[in-house]
């Protein structure tokens, strides 16, 4: 098991958000955490990364506990997070943003850069442009590209489709599918449920801070309660 979250309780100050959440991802697997706004999806990912501390429960990654680690330490272990806000460096160029993603491993940077630019040809076209001048879709590609530059074992994405035009979303999910078929482990949260279920092997439904349902993504796609709540069909 590459990522194992067990009995996680977490929140902001006195406001508890997550109650006894357990999820796991095998190496090479893609999993999705779906659910409505405010269900605690972002809180879950931030707690895994060490940006928030858990009040109870544990996060195991690659056989070790991540308890007490800072986000940069988690990132260095190969668990790399792309937040919904993307957190790019707006006045630095596309290339500089990518370079910083690989700053721990300068020797591998050139080769990884080739791969990232091959995956996202649009970033190649805009390599000298400042990150702040990119479109939303391009910024999301840059955020994912920067994460890939670290040579991650697990790529964690928080609602990658947020704020993107439908065409950009489709392009992004094609690229994520390519990463998955290359063997990268992917953990993502998403509100666009059909896309997320089509990409992933398994999925968890998070509602009001607790896992309500989980299973194979293809099964969940046919589940009546999912259809009703998330797919807009009766």
């Amino acid at each position, binding site marked *: 098991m590459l990522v194992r979250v067990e009995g996680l309780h977490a929140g902001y100050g006195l406001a508890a958000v997550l109650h006894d959440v357990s999820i796991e991802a095998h190496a090479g697997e893609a999993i999705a955490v779906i659910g409505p706004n405010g269900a605690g999806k972002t809180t879950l990912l931030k707690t895994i990364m060490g940006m928030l501390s858990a009040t109870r429960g544990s996060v195991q990654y690659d056989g070790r506990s991540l308890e007490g680690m800072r986000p940069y330490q988690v990132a260095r272990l190969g668990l790399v997070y792309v937040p919904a806000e*993307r957190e*790019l460096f707006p006045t630095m160029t596309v290339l500089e943003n990518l370079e910083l993603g690989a700053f721990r491993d300068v020797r591998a940077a050139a080769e990884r850069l080739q791969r990232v630019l091959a995956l996202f040809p649009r970033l190649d076209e805009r390599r000298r442009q400042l990150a702040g001048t990119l479109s939303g879709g391009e910024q999301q590609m840059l955020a994912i590209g920067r*994460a890939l530059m670290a040579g991650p074992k697990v790529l964690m994405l928080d609602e990658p489709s947020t704020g993107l035009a439908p065409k950009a979303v489709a392009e992004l999910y094609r690229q994520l599918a390519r990463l998955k078929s290359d063997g990268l482990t992917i953990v993502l949260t998403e509100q666009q449920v059909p896309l997320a279920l089509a990409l992933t092997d398994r999925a968890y439904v998070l509602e009001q801070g607790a896992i309500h349902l989980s299973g194979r993504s293809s099964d969940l796609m046919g589940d009546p309660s999912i259809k009703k709540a998330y797919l807009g069909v009766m």
Partner: protein
Amino acid sequence: MTAILLDGIVQGLQLSLLAVGITLIYGLGGVLNLAHGQFAVVGGVAAAILVSAGVHPLAAAAGGIACAGLLGWLVDRTLLVPAYRYHGEDRLLLGLILTLGLSFVIDGALNYKFPEFSLTFRLPLAMVEVGGIPMRTASLAASAIAIAVFAGLFAFLRFTLLGKTIRSIIENEAGAELCGIDPGRTRTLIVILAAMMAGIAGVTQGLFSSLGTEMGPEFTTLGLLVAVVGGVRSVNGTLAAGVLLGIVNAFASHYVGAYVAYILLLSAAMATILVRPAGLLARFT
């Protein structure tokens, strides 16, 4: 006229050198260092002590700068540790109080140990003509040093990976951390670097004028003014603001006197804040 202008530029470059450290520490660490002028004085005083102990002036200058850097490292690793545990406004306020206290301690200690002290490097002060204006070589040397330091700083921030990580933290600390960058270690490095640049300003001050132990608060105030006018996160803004305020100061001191010059400097700072709240060269306001 031209003589006053040149004099202003010389002084202004010194101010920039002093202020850029305030800019970097604020941009990277979220702490406004109210003891920054004292870093400069400590550097200058240490250099002077070495000179009087018979050390070659160049080595003494290097020693003084290293001493300022050491002080920066100590302050970052001890005094500022509690401030770094907090974020945003809490860190800023705690940092203000801690560094203000530190400035009192340094001022007191220096005035007690070295009363009536003044540093001047007794170098051959030849005059040269620049565009028909006689200038002291020491002023030119001080300016050349400041320009070289700035050129080095720009190249470092722009072209080296370490410099880029520094810029990335100034721009977006959360994003930098997601790249695996340790903001704490980089912060320590930048405090040391900033203190050393203050040390250079202190030493070069002794080169073309004199440096007294009581000058810390004045340096801090001027440095803060320059940093604010330049935009407290912009290095090139700080350079421009230092030169600009240096020129304003030189003209004001010449025509209306030193006291009114201060008022004019403050007015210039206020005007900038009103017109360009994020600083002279701010790209994003």
